[in-house]
């Protein structure tokens, strides 16, 4: 139960960070929220935040134009990296003494 409340608080903090990035305004806070969500295991929240930011900011201008959805790509890459890292840590062989 304590872990659940901590997870809820963390989710709320991440969501507030994303809203603050949009409202303050400071787009770097929004990126921080996406990264924090992905690293903390909230993969769906990270991808949804990335999609929302891409909808709000529109297609990038200039060199990044080819990316089309940079925040969503960032979220997917970070989610993928976090998932692989967490799985590799879980599969780390444990030595046992018989």
């Amino acid at each position, binding site marked *: 139960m304590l872990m659940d409340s901590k997870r809820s608080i963390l989710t709320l903090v991440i969501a507030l960070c994303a809203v603050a990035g*949009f*409202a*303050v*305004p*400071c*787009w770097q806070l929004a990126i921080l929220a996406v990264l924090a969500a992905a690293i903390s295991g909230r993969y*769906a929240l990270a*991808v*949804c935040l990335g*999609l*929302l930011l*891409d*909808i*709000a*900011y*529109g*297609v*990038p*201008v*200039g*060199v*990044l*134009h080819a990316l089309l*959805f940079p925040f*969503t790509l960032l979220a997917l890459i970070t989610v993928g990296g976090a998932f692989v890292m967490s*799985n590799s840590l*879980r*599969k780390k*062989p*444990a*030595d*046992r*003494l*018989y």
Partner: protein
Amino acid sequence: MRTTSSKRTPLNRASGRMLRSPSTFFSILALVVLILVVFLWRDGVASVFWRGAVPVLDARGGLSSDVGGVFAQFSSKAELAAENARLSDALASTSAALLDRDLLYQENLDLKLRLGRDASVPTILAGVVMRPPAVPYDTLTIDAGQGEGVTRGDLVSAGGTTLIGSVDTVYAHASRVVLFSAPGQSYDALLSMTDQAGVATTIPVHVEGQGAGSFTAQVPSGTVVAAGNTILFSGIATGFVGFVSHVEANEGDSFETLYARLPVDPLGLRFVEVRRNAHGQ
């Protein structure tokens, strides 16, 4: 004693079960569908998003002004009085210049009309709901869209003939404006200058955006150009695009590099005018 490594730990088996559970599968499926919907119908989804976001951001702008007013009460009376006097003087001189400019502009339109050309441009007033640094790109989001008569390619000014960008994407009741200074943007313009004989003239230049309200252009070496020269769009309804802030000329180079800036600070814009059906004219 011997040691061994286990590849199938309880934690490992638990994570495998989680991935195979129906709820996780449907969550991933829903996420994939959501991503596809946004990828394929971006403008439609963005239109819906901005229907709700524009009123919220407008309210945020009003709240910022009110909060700023509250905190201003904590400034010292002397500081406020000094700032008030300074702003009143600036306003008085600006009002006189503006009146002069309006009279000259109207005279310019009347003269063009007498010569058979109507240079007046219908405009739509729009509020800026998002601007840098809220946006990571050199773009503005305004609260006028298809419903207000905005079309893609319309030029946007900060007021009068001071052009700052063009409409890139149009939603139902919002639009995205790409500033001329955005990285990757380039366009042809005219540099207003005085030639070596002292005669006012214009030369064509190709301007490239550098971001944050700045752009660059190159002119042949030896061109008499100085800081303060203006950059204009050609056409019957001339637009003032920027002014030269610095000239870099290295000995032996065939070209001089001009560094120019938008005539207004895009970070402080609250209202803009959209020139209807004025596509680069």
